[in-house]
């Protein structure tokens, strides 16, 4: 009876182990994996793919050999009560051989690895330069004036989403305002740490239009998991349209509309931190936001063209409803640029999340905004505090911001 019970227990454990292994294996077969590093979408990511696949195979073979030998030794020489075998200090020849073989394998791996690293650090052939700046917990993206990127005559500044032209070697120059962050779009290239006071380069190139997701990969505090970003690759023609929209003049809401009331509310409640280019006070002077006086990082997202983006709050939430988002994300390469350029219509606005954010931002995304716990930062919060807005004010702001496209 006892023997039968023991066998049943072992059998049950083996079954559970097999199911767990199967679960792990199946987890690697996900179809909807926007951050799949094994699914390159540009030549830089392809270089990494060409390096990592053979190395993974080689490492797998080595691991299999080692585990097989280890398993054999453990079973073959297990304790059966036999005499202790002869004890020796070691076998110098065997040890030397077992040192030289891994050394040769590592040398074999290092040659293509170094070659790939050098190739990925090449910058001379890049045609379009874009700056990214990380801070807790969002990414700012700006396009300096240049002839590259098809020509940019005025600085473009946005956040959360970076728009690039397809087939173009883009050089991303990154830094950070507060702590170390890491910028990673797995389908376009490897990750790169962004360090305050230093500038690091990473090149991007997308073969075809699409939306490529990523997220901060260096733990950077409370809302690290909510620090996401996306790269929108579009045809050069669509990219020109997008640029023109970003460099357009500010158009004030029509007087007497809810949006006009929203503009006043925005000036009263939001413009201390958030810049909207072209916004003026009653005397016709430009309204300059002072995030340097309001938040620890000294920066907040520029909201001039908020509704040309699809995300908000560090790309943590979509500005589009799930249906409209799917319409963009699932679009074919031929139409994704066009879909993206449609921006956020009133019908497609994800008003639930957006209004929740306006109602009480820290309740939606943890951001160290409690004024009683800000001794280390000189009283400055690390994100958007609760402004205590009323529902009327939220209605006005939504109407105003919907026109920011």
């Amino acid at each position, binding site marked *: 009876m006892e023997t039968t019970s023991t066998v049943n227990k072992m059998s049950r454990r083996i079954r559970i182990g097999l199911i767990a292994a199967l679960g792990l294996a199946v987890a690697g077969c996900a179809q909807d994996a926007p951050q799949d590093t094994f699914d390159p979408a540009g030549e830089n990511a392809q270089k990494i793919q060409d390096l990592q696949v053979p190395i993974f195979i080689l490492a797998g073979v080595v691991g299999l050999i080692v585990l097989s030998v280890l398993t054999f030794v453990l079973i073959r020489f297990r304790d059966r009560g036999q005499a202790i075998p002869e004890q020796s200090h070691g076998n110098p020849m065997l040890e030397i051989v077992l040192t030289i073989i891994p050394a040769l394998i590592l040398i074999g791996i290092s040659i293509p690895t170094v070659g790939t690293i050098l190739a990925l650090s090449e910058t001379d052939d890049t045609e379009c*330069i874009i700056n990214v700046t990380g801070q807790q917990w969002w990414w*700012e993206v700006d396009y300096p004036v240049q002839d*590259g990127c098809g020509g940019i005559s005025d600085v473009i500044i946005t956040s959360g989403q970076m728009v690039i032209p397809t087939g173009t070697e883009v050089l991303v120059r990154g*830094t950070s305002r507060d702590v170390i962050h890491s910028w990673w779009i797995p389908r376009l290239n490897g990750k790169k740490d962004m360090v305050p006071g230093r500038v*690091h*380069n990473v090149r991007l190139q997308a073969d075809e239009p699409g939306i490529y997701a990523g997220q901060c990969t260096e733990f950077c505090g409370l809302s690290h998991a909510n620090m996401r970003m996306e790269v929108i690759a579009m045809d050069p023609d669509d990219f020109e349209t997008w640029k023109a929209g970003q460099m357009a003049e500010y158009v004030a809401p029509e007087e007497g509309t809810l949006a006009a009331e929203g503009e006043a509310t925005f000036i009263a409640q939001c413009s201390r931190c958030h810049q909207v280019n072209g916004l003026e006070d009653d005397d016709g002077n430009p309204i300059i936001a002072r995030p340097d006086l309001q938040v620890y990082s000294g920066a907040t997202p520029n909201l001039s063209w908020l509704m040309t983006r699809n995300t908000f709050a560090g790309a943590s939430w979509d500005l589009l409803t799930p249906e409209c988002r799917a319409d963009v994300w699932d679009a074919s390469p031929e139409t994704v640029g066009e879909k993206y350029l449609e921006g956020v219509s009133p019908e497609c606005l994800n008003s639930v999340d957006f209004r929740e954010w306006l109602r009480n931002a820290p309740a939606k995304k943890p951001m160290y905004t409690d004024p009683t716990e800000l001794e280390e930062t000189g009283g400055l919060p690390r994100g958007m505090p609760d402004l205590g807005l009323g529902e009327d004010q939220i209605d006005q702001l939504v109407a105003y911001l919907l026109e920011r496209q």
Partner: protein
Amino acid sequence: MFTTGSKFLIGSAVFAIIATIAYGISQDGVMGTIGLASAAAALSFLAGVNIFTHDSNVSGSDASAIDSCAAAEPAPANSIWPLAFALGAVVLAVGLITYQAVFIIGIVLLLAAGAEWTTQAWAEQASAEAAHNSEVRSRIANPLEFPLAAAIGVGLIVYAFSRVMLWLSKTNTVIALGVLGAIIVSVAFLLAYRPGLRSRTAVGVIGVGVLALVVGGAAAGLDGERDVHEQETTVDLAHEGICESPEEFEADHNASQSVAATAAVAATITLDDSGELNYELNGPRPEGATALTLQRSSPSNVLFSNKSGEERRLSLNLGPATAGSGADEEDAPHQVCTTLVEFDGEQNLTLIIGLPSIAAEDGYHFFVPGVESAELELIVP
């Protein structure tokens, strides 16, 4: 009647009485006479007590007494600690009139020698057996001695190593570390390949290595560090309007920590011999761009390279004061600049600009005092 001990005390008492009389007659000092008289009285008292109790009475013919008396016990081994204690006292005294470091060494030596001496003296009273006493001492002192000695040894090695590294030039440091690594690997290989190697040989090899390092460190320390180019800060000087001056001024010479910031800088701005300011980026410069773009509120390091043939500084008008500068708004500098940079020299300038360019009436511009043509626009989005 007179025991061995009493003879000694009687003799001492007689000597003290004679000294009292001699001192009292020849000297005017009352205190000395009183002291010597007191000593004579005390010794006489002790001699009387000794005679009365027959203490220390060892007869030369009493064999058993010879074997059992205290004098028959083996004397404790010679101790270095009294000597070290005396040396500590001397070093301390010398330190009082020379250098503070010598004084501190004297105190440490004095305390350490005193502690060791006390411990040893205590242990020697544990029993009549020297081996047992030694074991008792080790049991008490070793848990403290070993870690302390190890810490001092490691500290000495690290300090010597740091002196050597600071003495070597950058290139020679690379070579030295390469050679050192090769030596360590070779010795390790030798020890691993020849397990039969006598441990004394291995210890000897390592000992020679450590000794060479310590001697090298001492020599390097005496010779001094290599020249380290110091980066001077100017933030406190901006208030003085110095950023618009082509003249020399005093600056903080203890700011060499900013050397690390000269890698992966946001831009390198060069003043060429024609008096023009140009900039280069880490990576290619945006094609067609004439202005430099830096992010708002972000710590940006700009390296100024002077190729003009004269000492020059790079200055930047910051416009309105900002909290991002790290100072109170009222006190924040409106300008930042490098110190005067020698020909072919470089200096780092860290900028945190809290406001966008549109907030400044004429935007932001880098300039070089004394060189009118040297101007570069800075765009802060």
